[in-house]
């Protein structure tokens, strides 16, 4: 049996696509397992892992369908590996049930969704942010999800590392929401050396853990139970049924309530570690353009050129879209008169912005949902209109 090699990237500048940056980021974060199914515009991610994983003794699986790809990464995660899958909107729909299962059994996995225009087969090679609500509510039942949205190739690399780390830290599936433009865009980025990257591994039980005393879903102070790899001798049960600390279902409503609350609170007690954003809002700015993913590129460009003409505008870029940055957006709404939300959909995250703003600021959308990017001039025109 060959020992798994630790991936040690050299610090180097490369000209790569967002999809390839996801592969580089995942390998840098310690991912050793990919399973998935070909789909435009995410196939380059599968191709990258097929090429790279055997080099480090990792495993690549092309499965028979999207559902199996999701199932296999959860299986690999339970067997102790950092695991990732990648797809686009239609495939993301197919993965939802097993994504919910991963949430329920608290298996750290990363699901990449390189979004294309939907519904259905839609426009496979055009960008979209139409799966924002699918990421949040695509599964049955109430549940939390972490979703990150890179706006550049560099961010695709960095947020993939972040996604793996968050999944490991919180025993929580994390969705990485690229879109077709970010996935296929080529930019020069710097790959870090491994000692520059913070790598988080899941908390495991102590080596001398008594199997008879092991509680796979133990109620700990941080609400994150230590997770044993299959085959480590602790012989525990994993089930999508609501389960008590022992991992076994007992059919009790109190058990379900306790578990629902723990799954919610393990994230909501740590929002400061999960919610990532960047902003440039000056004291006298009257308008903020709030965006994420490829729409943020347009937004920042429009704000920067507008400022040259003395427009009182700033930008706010969400890198974490779920859980939603409620507190930060409420603060923003108290600070400016208007928030403009450009999105590549008919207005999905804007609902959350309005909810968080709670009437403190006017919230206006700019929407493109048929496969074209929003132009900076469109945002500029609205900025001039409201200022």
């Amino acid at each position, binding site marked *: 049996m060959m020992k798994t090699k630790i991936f040690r990237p050299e610090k180097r500048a490369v000209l790569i696509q967002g999809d390839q940056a996801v592969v580089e980021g995942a390998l840098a974060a310690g991912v050793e397992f990919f399973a998935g199914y070909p789909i435009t515009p995410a196939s380059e991610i599968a191709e990258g892992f097929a090429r790279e994983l055997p080099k480090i003794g990792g495993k690549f699986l092309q499965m028979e369908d999207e559902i*199996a790809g999701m199932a296999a990464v959860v299986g690999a995660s339970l*067997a102790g590996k950092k*695991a990732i899958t990648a797809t686009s909107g239609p495939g993301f729909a197919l993965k939802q049930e097993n994504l919910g299962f991963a949430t329920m059994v608290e298996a750290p996995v990363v699901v990449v969704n390189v979004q294309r225009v939907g519904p259905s087969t839609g426009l496979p090679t055009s960008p979209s942010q139409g799966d924002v609500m699918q990421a949040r509510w695509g599964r049955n039942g109430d549940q939390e999800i972490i979703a990150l949205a890179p706006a550049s190739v560099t961010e695709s690399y960095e947020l993939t590392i972040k996604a793996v780390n968050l999944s490991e830290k919180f025993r929580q599936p994390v969705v990485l929401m690229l879109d077709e433009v970010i996935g296929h865009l080529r930019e020069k980025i710097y790959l870090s050396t491994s000692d520059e990257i913070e790598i988080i591994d899941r908390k495991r039980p102590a080596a001398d853990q008594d199997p008879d005393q092991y509680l796979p879903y133990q109620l700990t102070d941080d609400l994150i139970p230590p997770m044993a790899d299959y085959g480590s001798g602790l*012989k525990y049960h994993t089930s999508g049924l609501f389960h008590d600390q022992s991992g*076994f279902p007992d059919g009790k409503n109190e058990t379900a309530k306790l578990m629902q609350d723990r799954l919610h609170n393990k994230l909501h007690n740590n929002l400061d570690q999960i919610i990532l954003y960047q902003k440039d809002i000056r004291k006298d700015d009257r308008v903020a353009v709030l965006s994420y993913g490829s729409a943020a590129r347009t937004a920042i460009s429009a704000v920067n050129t507008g400022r040259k003409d003395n427009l009182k505008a700033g930008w706010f870029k969400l890198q974490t879209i779920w859980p939603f940055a409620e507190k930060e957006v409420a603060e923003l709404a108290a600070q400016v008169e208007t928030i403009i939300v450009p999105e590549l959909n008919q207005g999905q995250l804007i609902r959350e912005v309005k909810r968080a703003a709670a009437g403190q600021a006017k919230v206006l959308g700019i929407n493109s949902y048929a496969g074209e990017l929003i132009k900076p001039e469109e945002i500029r025109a609205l900025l001039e209109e409201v200022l």
Partner: protein
Amino acid sequence: MDFEKYLRMDKLPHIWCPGCGHGTILNSFIRAFAESDFDQDKTVVISGIGCSGRATGYLNFDTLHTTHGRAIAFATGVKMANPELNVIVMTGDGDGSAIGGNHLIHAARRNIDLTVILFNNQIYGMTGGQFSPMTPTGDLASTAPYGNIDQNFNLAELVAGAGGTFIARGATFDPRQLKKLYLAALKHKGFSFVESLSQCPVSYGRQNKAGDAVEMLKKQEEDTINFKKWQQLSTEEKKLKYPLGILKELDNPESEYTVRYQKIIEQVNNEGAL
């Protein structure tokens, strides 16, 4: 022999109905496992949804009770992630051949080293007696109140055709043979599949006036025949009986999927990559 160590005794008695054959399958499996040289700590048992899905809760191994139909896909991930683990799948005829049929044939095609035990009681029991892909044509089910017009699979032939390298069929009227088949399946290096005929007196039996468990077991015995004897029957006679025993066995460990992937890893690392 100490069989209790393979059971989670505090989870018993099981939830299966009186007369159900699934307990016989579990019993035969434990006896087979005890005779194998497998390490209990290095064995993962994975199930889906349905009556068969509950088997994993009673077994004292690392156990994974997955979503409906997906046990084999989860198992493929576990086995690939750590090929040192023995990975066993327990599934039903609905779970394994309807919603999970795609995973069944593709795992067989890959010849990945999983041992799949399919509990075939010819009905969806947990949900109350709807017809499955294994319900015989003409039988009654809650969703076939005028008789089932679907044709049922010959699952063993399906999995053999898909490339599985160990195919067997046993039945709960003969638990000793079941045990032997499970032991051979566990030892086989490659994809092994044991269709295990089981009786469901409650959800299938009542609707089809098949009698109690004893009568259903007698019928099972009448409808089946040893594979070697079956081979000597005429084409017409063969259609009337299910052959029992090892139906296909190809011993070629080198063709097993994780072995082939390991060769890729070695090739890439020795010769340099793309």
